[in-house]
């Protein structure tokens, strides 16, 4: 006998789809099939069922081999490296629930850590821009029901957020968008001819690294001022045309991704894109939204926002929160040898950071808390496997539009396996014991 669980949340990308159906065994121990998810989402669920899954913490030995250790030993090691360090880095936090993020923040405060999440190599630059000039945004529900001008800038949802286009942005029929795709105009700005660009009405194939200039040109065009003949490889006529197309919509939404947040100019690109959105509101209704990657990176920004006042790169070492990307961001800290221990949870810097930073992690006391074996667990001294959030334990996550969604537990984790939150609660208790507080 099997059971079907409906309305399951996909804990993979920032789209946080909430309509999955999962077939599990009658005893809740085995996950058999996943429906409605895209390929990468389904893979995440099925991965939890891998037969060779690591279920106990491991410590790296002198000769490079792993030795199985108990959770108690892993808790002791983690608490010790964090309390011994003068400035530990606690990084990741994007693939876990808000409950675990909150406990981790408490530890970070006690040990004077720098708390950073994956935004640091992704949308952190967007957060800088938001702090500098604010953001007119909306929910994905509003996009589905209202938006008739969809602009994708430097992002490729066809691959990175596969169901985004069908659920929210291009194809769905909503309350005021009854014609679906037909009633919408889609503009893609990307130097590459992506799969997303292939469904667009207009594709502006911008010269690499000239986003700031093209965004600026849009603002000049809105005001009917003169433009140079070509900006960022795009003839001015096309820019005026695209500007008109946006102005003529009833509701414009701009989605942007790492093509603009991590290319030349970074936060400035987003700053100017937000200014474009603000300008458009002189003519019609317009909103802008970052295409957040990890399913709960938005949540970690929310949790730290309400606890510390800043969404990432929070330096707690002096007992108060400081925030200055460029100084308090993980790669800058590692590059400059500013931290003396590394704790990673819910992310894979081993795969996403520059090799020079990964080498620094390798040379420091380090622990990785992750359900998977990853490039990060390969360079850390201790690996603590945990239950999959959103599959084997529930908890709160924030969608890319800052809507909180409660994820669901659909199967039991392997016997005796801790969740992120449980492990962190034990570490917190041990840290308090060591510090005598």
């Amino acid at each position, binding site marked *: 006998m099997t059971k079907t669980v409906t309305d399951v949340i996909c804990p993979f990308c920032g789209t946080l789809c909430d309509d999955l159906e999962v077939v599990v065994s009658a005893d809740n121990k085995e996950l058999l099939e996943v429906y409605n998810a895209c390929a990468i989402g389904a893979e995440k669920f099925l991965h939890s069922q891998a037969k060779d899954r690591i279920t106990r913490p491991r410590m790296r030995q002198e000769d490079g081999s792993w030795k199985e250790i108990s959770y108690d030993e892993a808790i002791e090691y983690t608490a010790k490296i964090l309390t011994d360090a003068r400035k530990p880095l606690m990084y990741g936090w994007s693939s876990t629930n808000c409950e675990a993020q909150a406990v981790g923040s408490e530890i970070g405060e006690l040990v004077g850590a720098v708390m950073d999440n994956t935004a640091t190599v992704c949308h952190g630059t967007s957060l*800088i821009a938001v702090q*500098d000039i604010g953001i007119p945004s909306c929910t994905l529900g509003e996009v589905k029901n209202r938006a008739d001008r969809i602009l994708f800038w430097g992002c490729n949802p066809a691959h990175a957020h596969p169901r985004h286009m069908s659920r929210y942005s291009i194809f769905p029929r909503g309350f005021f968008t009854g014609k679906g795709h037909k009633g919408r105009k889609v503009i893609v700005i990307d130097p590459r001819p992506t799969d997303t660009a292939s469904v667009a009405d207009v594709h502006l194939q911008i010269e690499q690294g000239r986003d700031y200039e093209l965004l600026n040109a849009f603002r000049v065009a809105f005001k009917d001022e003169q433009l140079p003949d070509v900006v960022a490889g795009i003839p001015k006529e096309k820019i005026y045309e695209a500007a008109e197309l946006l102005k003529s919509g009833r509701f414009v939404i701009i989605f942007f991704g790492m093509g603009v947040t991590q290319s030349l100019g970074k936060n400035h690109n987003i700053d100017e894109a937000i200014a474009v959105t603000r300008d458009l509101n002189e003519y019609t209704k317009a909103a802008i939204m970052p295409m957040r990657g990890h399913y709960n990176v938005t949540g970690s920004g929310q949790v730290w926002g309400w606890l510390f006042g800043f969404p990432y790169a929070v330096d707690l070492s002096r007992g108060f929160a400081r925030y200055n990307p460029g100084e308090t961001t993980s790669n800058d800290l590692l590059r400059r040898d500013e931290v*003396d221990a590394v704790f990673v949870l819910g992310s894979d810097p081993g795969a996403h950071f520059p090799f020079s930073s990964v080498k620094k992690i390798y040379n420091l006391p380090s622990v990785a808390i992750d359900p998977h074996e990853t490039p990060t667990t390969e360079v850390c001294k201790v690996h603590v496997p945990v239950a999959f959030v959103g599959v084997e334990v529930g908890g709160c996550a924030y969608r890319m539009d800052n809507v909180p969604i409660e994820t669901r537990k659909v199967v039991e984790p392997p016997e005796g396996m801790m969740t992120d939150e449980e492990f962190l609660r034990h570490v917190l208790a041990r840290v308090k014991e060591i510090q005598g507080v």
Partner: protein
Amino acid sequence: METVTLTIKNQPDLFLEADTITPDAFAGKKIEEIADLHVYVGREQHRLGDFFEISGKAGATPEETKIVVNGDLSRVKYIGMKMTAGEVVVNGNADMYVGAWMQGGKITVNGDVDAFAGTGMKGGELIIKGNAGNYLGAAYRGDWRGMQAGTITVTGNAGSDIGTFMNGGEIVIGGDVDVHVATHAEGGRIIIKGNAKSRLGGQMVEGEIYVLGSIDLMMPGFAYREDVDVDVDGIKGRFALYEGDLGERHRKRKGQTIYAKLYQRIEA
């Protein structure tokens, strides 16, 4: 003026946060009291005297106090932060935040400085004889009031993002600069004697930029107006005047829209 000399004797194994190296903190103190001032390595609190050999004598007030710091200070942050008067001379390279939020007095660095020097500066004089890093004279994160007044002079090159949200004062760069100059600026003057790359005056509302060398790429929001003769601050010659950022909001005065001005030298 009395002088206190600091010579670094122990390098911190992480970084040293020494926002107490200012005439304001030293004034009126004995050498032993100065040695007891707090500095930080991560969350650990230390004494200034744990890291520096300290000699000389402090003046009664900040105005009468000069501090000379010797040695490799490339792992020391916040030298001269928030100082209001007096003088600091750094003989060596210094790390981030030299003269951040300074209000008065004078800092001379005989070496390079890392990022965020002169952040949110309100007054005084910051002289860097070597190169400066990114965010020179810029606003602190999230602050829309960058440099308000005072002068920053760099003999060598400067990094990116100089003068972000600048409202007043002057920055003079002897060499070249990286991208993003005077973003969001609403006033002040930046003089670049060498070459610039791109994104000069992006989202700039008001203020002036002078470039004596080349500009790789002009912002689309800057429009050429006319050639003019310039004679400011020892800078003389024929310059092409551009106005912008046309995409940004601008104030009006006497019915006239006020734009930011970018001058590029045509001939000396």
